[in-house]
């Protein structure tokens, strides 16, 4: 028994060791890598993917998947930007933007649970539809120049909180809250249970459908939050924003050691996974690797991580 336990611990450390190795190699190859400036920049970039990936962790733990996160991000950003362009107060616009993300998530959840559509198919459909709605709403053009004087909105992407960029603060706060939720609450416990065995959970009297809807709503809300950070940083809402973000989020979750079949995983792994992707992007940029090769390398790293994980299980 002891042996089994120790193995599990090593397995948990795997992603962290990978991240450390990556950092060591990059700090040798590039003297800019370990600077404070670079890390604040890196973490700011990571925060967007991490926020989406945190939600994705819950979805994947229940045995589902959410492909619509990038489109949710784009549509909720466009809504917020559009409202502000019409003179709506920044705080209210942010609230409505987040809420629109929640509503889109709830819609995903309802289609999946009440409509009994496989999560992959359901969110593939809403991914397309939400993207379409974004293009309709923006007429295919970016919304710009709407928030030059709104402090609240400016803060989201570009502000500092005791010297730490606000996106990083948001990422850490959300991480801590969700870590506690997953570890200490019935919501977290039931998320694992449903992913581990949905039928047994239902027969144990758990509200399976309701919990799944909440989980997709959470992911929708966090995607909207990530979108607001992005929009604030760029000071514009792009109709094509967030394209393929679902892939980075899923990659972060998988790199962190969460099982795609559900029921097994942890959110700390996702944070580390998002950092690995972020460090890789950042490092390859510093080393002037062409963006074409960057994709090849990222793909190879994901594959390598999963293969190593498989080896440990055998």
């Amino acid at each position, binding site marked *: *028994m002891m*042996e*089994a336990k120790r193995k599990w611990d090593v397995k948990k450390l795997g992603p962290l060791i990978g991240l450390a190795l990556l950092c060591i190699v990059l700090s040798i190859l590039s003297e800019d890598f370990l600077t404070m400036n670079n890390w604040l920049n890196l973490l700011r970039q990571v925060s967007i993917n991490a926020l989406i990936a945190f939600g994705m962790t819950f979805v994947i733990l229940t045995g589902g998947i959410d492909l619509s996160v990038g489109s949710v991000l784009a549509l909720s950003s466009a809504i917020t930007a559009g409202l502000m362009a019409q003179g709506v107060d920044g705080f209210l616009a942010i609230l409505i933007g987040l809420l629109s993300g929640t509503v889109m998530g709830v819609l995903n959840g309802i289609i999946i649970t009440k409509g009994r559509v496989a999560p992959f198919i359901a969110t593939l459909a809403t991914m397309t539809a939400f993207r379409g709605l974004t293009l309709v709403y923006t007429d295919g053009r970016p919304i710009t120049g709407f928030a030059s004087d709104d402090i609240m909105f400016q803060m989201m992407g570009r502000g500092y909180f005791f010297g730490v960029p606000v996106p990083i603060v948001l990422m850490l706060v959300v991480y801590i809250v969700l870590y506690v939720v997953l570890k*200490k*609450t*019935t*919501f977290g*416990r*039931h998320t*694992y*249970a449903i992913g*581990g*065995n949905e*039928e*047994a*959970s*239902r*027969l*144990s*009297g*758990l*509200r399976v459908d309701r919990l799944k809807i909440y989980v997709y709503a959470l992911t929708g809300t966090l995607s909207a939050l990530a979108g607001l950070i992005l929009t604030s940083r760029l000071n514009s809402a792009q109709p094509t924003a967030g394209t393929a973000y679902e892939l980075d989020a899923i990659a972060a979750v998988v790199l962190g050691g969460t099982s795609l079949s559900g*029921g*097994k995983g942890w959110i700390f792994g996702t944070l580390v996974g998002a950092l690995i992707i972020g460090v890789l992007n950042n490092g390859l940029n510093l080393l002037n690797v062409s963006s074409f090769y960057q994709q090849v390398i990222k793909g190879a790293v994901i594959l390598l991580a999963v293969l190593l994980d498989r080896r440990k299980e055998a």
Partner: protein
Amino acid sequence: MKPLIDMRSIQKSFGSHTVLNGVDFEVLPGEVHALMGENGAGKSTLIKVLTGIYERDGGTIVVNGREVHYRHPKEAEQDGIVVIHQELNVIPTLTVAENIFLGREPKIGRTGIIRHKEMEKQAASYLRRLGMDLHPRELTGQLSVGKQQMVEIARAISTNAKCLIMDEPTAALTEREIQALFSIIRTLKEQGIAIVYISHRMEEIFTICDRISVLRDGQFIGTKRIEETNFDEIVQMMVGRQIGERFPKRSVTIGKERLRVEQLTKKGVFEGVSFSVRAGEVLGVAGLMGSGRTEIMEAIFGARPFDEGNIYIDGRPVHIRSPRQAVEHGIAMITEDRKQKGLILNMSVHENLTLPKSEQLATAGFIQSSKERDIVSSFIQRLNIKTSSPDLAVKALSGGNQQKVVFGKWLAMNPQILILDEPTRGVDVGAKKEIYEMINELAAQGVAIIMVSSELPEVLGMSDRVMVIHEGRVQAILENNELDQETVMRAATGGN
């Protein structure tokens, strides 16, 4: 007669834990040899050592007069030793013939093009030889479990198997399928094929086997010819002590009616089902598999919709549309398939035990871990669950202990009505007795109990009344005084 398989002084340890300690096991051609022992006695390890999944630490294995060291089950299969697992290995989307010849399809030269006609002809001849009522072109997924098992046997025979190792082969079969399996086993015997038969079902073993070998705690206890031994001796060999009466007696005063079901109907599945259970009573439910008994229970528990009918609890009508509502009304259900429907296998004993109760144990959604730990340790003790730690994943436990976890998780919510569907399936003799005692204890506390079981001795040994289901209808409700198996069986097959 020269043995087909001769294993001598087999040793196997995992770390410091000795799993097999000097086990002898011999199989003769054409015999049916039962391998018995409680869960954890070392039966599966012995088979895994034989077929090369585990490497032995000591001892010899001689097959057909030649010492062997298999490194992979494939090598054992080449020597004609084939295991038929409890979870069948057929591909449901392929036909019977395609399954039998999977990986060995007759082809046109080396083109990879399959000679379907030839394959079906050969499959048909195997099926005929084994007396199996199957067509080569039938889709395997549409067959009953019993027939899928036949496909697997046919595949083994087509590879020239000399010894079939069958692990709990009747666990998922109906009475009629069991009889069909036994007649196939007799045919195989006549053709000189040996069968190693692993099962907990005593009645079957005394019906079909020639010899019985018993393991206990990794030790070889002995081999007996069937006509030289009896039920009690075998049980004693297995548990190493007298376990006393197989079905413990209970003295309970039966109280007032707890649950009444009236005219429960789901078109095409069950119809007009009416019965009642009183506090402290055990109502046994007998019926062939597929008779609708499980479906009726799932409908009462809210896990399956029904068209018509009423359910009353303590005289008041209730509307139960989900398991959650059933739980709120004090109904618990221990499902027949604990791995699929009862447990979250990757989760710990602790987390499984508190799952239905987790919301009551939480304050504002936060789990009160100290409160949980107290409940968990009290249940581990009360049910005598053998686990090294409450945090161990439940899949690491033996079948009997897993079943105790399922019991514990429902007992934690103090149910008033307890539905048990096959409560002792795949559970060894010792744990069975503990489960029976638990049922009696609950009845004594005034819980109304419905117990569905395929094992007639269990139904007769435990119930106050027996309800017999036949093709979705209540065929009879019998008072259990001096009730015999024949009477129940007759009703279950549609007679009176």
